[in-house]
């Protein structure tokens, strides 16, 4: 399969009076077209910083990120969509208008962007909430609007920074299944940052396990569970072994905690 994202020796250093701070060090991996990749690691390992660099929102101090062979130095809105931890919907716009926004910014004609946005809201199961304002939606619904908004410009890659981090566990599990379904219908390449190991294993083809001080990749773990995934796989032996392995990778780092 074709490589869509190549991360080559990426490092991020911040200047500090008492010597430079190495936030990210020598990070390399690649992502294939249509893959679902999760990045896990202890708090403060720089996984959000890495995502910002991958999406072009932040520049690396060392190394480079290539998408489709082209260097990423600033956001690539048509190709990469970013979904944040908070839904960040515009509170003065309806769900539909929020999903239309990225298309509007790109100058897509009204008729066309409306049709596309309705499709996306349908995909995330929110056809009934099209005309509602963000304050009338629950946390999970808001995040679904945010995902629909990300998908609206039909990007090849969706990068998500702990998108379910502020949701309760039940909603979170449901959203994970929802995300799998969306991924299976749209065949996007997805990069998901999460601090939940189970979530990462359950959803992904590959899990990049990060350590901290400095933030780096400890290991790339392939998840060979069959697709489509089902919730009862979480109780399987393979799942447990994978979970233990990642847990130990992170736990071997003295003094770090996994949340």
């Amino acid at each position: 399969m074709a490589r869509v994202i190549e991360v080559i020796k990426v490092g991020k250093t911040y200047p500090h009076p008492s010597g430079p701070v190495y936030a990210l060090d020598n990070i390399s991996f690649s992502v294939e077209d249509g893959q679902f990749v999760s990045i896990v690691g202890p708090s403060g390992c720089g996984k959000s910083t890495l995502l910002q660099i991958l999406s072009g929102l932040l520049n690396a101090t060392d190394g480079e990120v290539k998408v489709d062979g082209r260097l990423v130095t600033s956001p690539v809105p048509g190709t990469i969509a970013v979904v944040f931890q908070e839904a960040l919907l515009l509170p003065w716009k309806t769900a539909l208008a929020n999903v239309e926004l990225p298309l509007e910014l790109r100058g897509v004609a009204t008729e066309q962007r409306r049709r596309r946005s309705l499709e996306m809201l349908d995909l995330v199961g929110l056809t009934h909430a099209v005309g509602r304002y963000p304050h009338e939606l629950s946390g999970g619904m808001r995040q679904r609007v945010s995902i629909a908004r990300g998908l609206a410009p039909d990007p090849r890659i969706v990068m998500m920074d702990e998108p379910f981090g502020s949701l309760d566990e039940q909603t979170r599990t449901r959203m994970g299944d929802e995300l799998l379904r969306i991924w299976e219908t749209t065949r996007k390449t997805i990069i998901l940052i999460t601090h939940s190991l189970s979530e990462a294993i359950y959803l992904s083809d590959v899990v990049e396990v990060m350590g901290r001080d400095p933030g780096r990749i400890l290991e790339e773990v392939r998840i060979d569970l069959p697709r489509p995934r089902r919730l009862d796989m979480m109780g399987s032996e393979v799942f447990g072994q994978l979970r233990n392995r990642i847990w130990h990778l992170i736990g071997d780092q003295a003094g770090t905690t996994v949340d």
Partner: protein
Amino acid sequence: MSRYAKILLALALLAIWQAVCSLGLISPVIVASPINIVRAATSEWPEFLGALGYTSLLILAGIVGAWGLGIVVGAALGSSELLARATAPILSSILAVPLVVWYPILMVWVGIGAESKIIYGMLSGFFPIALATLNAVQHYDRRYVTLARAMGANTVQLFVRFIIPMTLPTIVAGLRVGTAFTVIGIIVAEMLASTAGLGFLISYYRTMFDTGHVYLGISLALAITFVINLGLTSLEKHMGRWRSLELSARTSR
């Protein structure tokens, strides 16, 4: 209460007011009767109509100046962390001082004509508007700027689609206070020293103990505030609606 009941109540109050005056229970110098006010209006209406137009014009000029200057200066100061921290305390402490103490100085500088009224009205409205704009620009949610960048918004789109709608509710609240201050400022300035306008007429007829005309002047000043308030309320409804909906949803959750 139904519409008719309200009208009836108002008429009843007017009748009681007229009766108290007609029976001579209160001296006409202290409280003018409704009939006196109507008489004042019918005899001196060209004078009062002229003053109403004149004062309205000054207020309009003052509002335009206060809004423009307040928003521009507030946005400029608010966009720099350093400037904002240096100037916000000064702005709020000036807001706490009654500006009218400076009016005599302004009079010496630009005279007692229209200019001093407009400048004074403008200054009165400027501080709350500048302070609100500064706060709005300082405190909107910066994560939306990251979102806008990720979506590929250009600078114009960033302002028009994200920053302006986000800061508008706070700015409009400032406009509301500032506009009221401008109106008060101009009428007070007219009462202090001038040769024309509603404030001048109120002050002039008061020295003549002509309470009917004073009341007429007051009613017209109230009419101006009433109209301006209508405008501001509709502005707030259109520009700041999302904020109040958002807040009420958050508190009820």
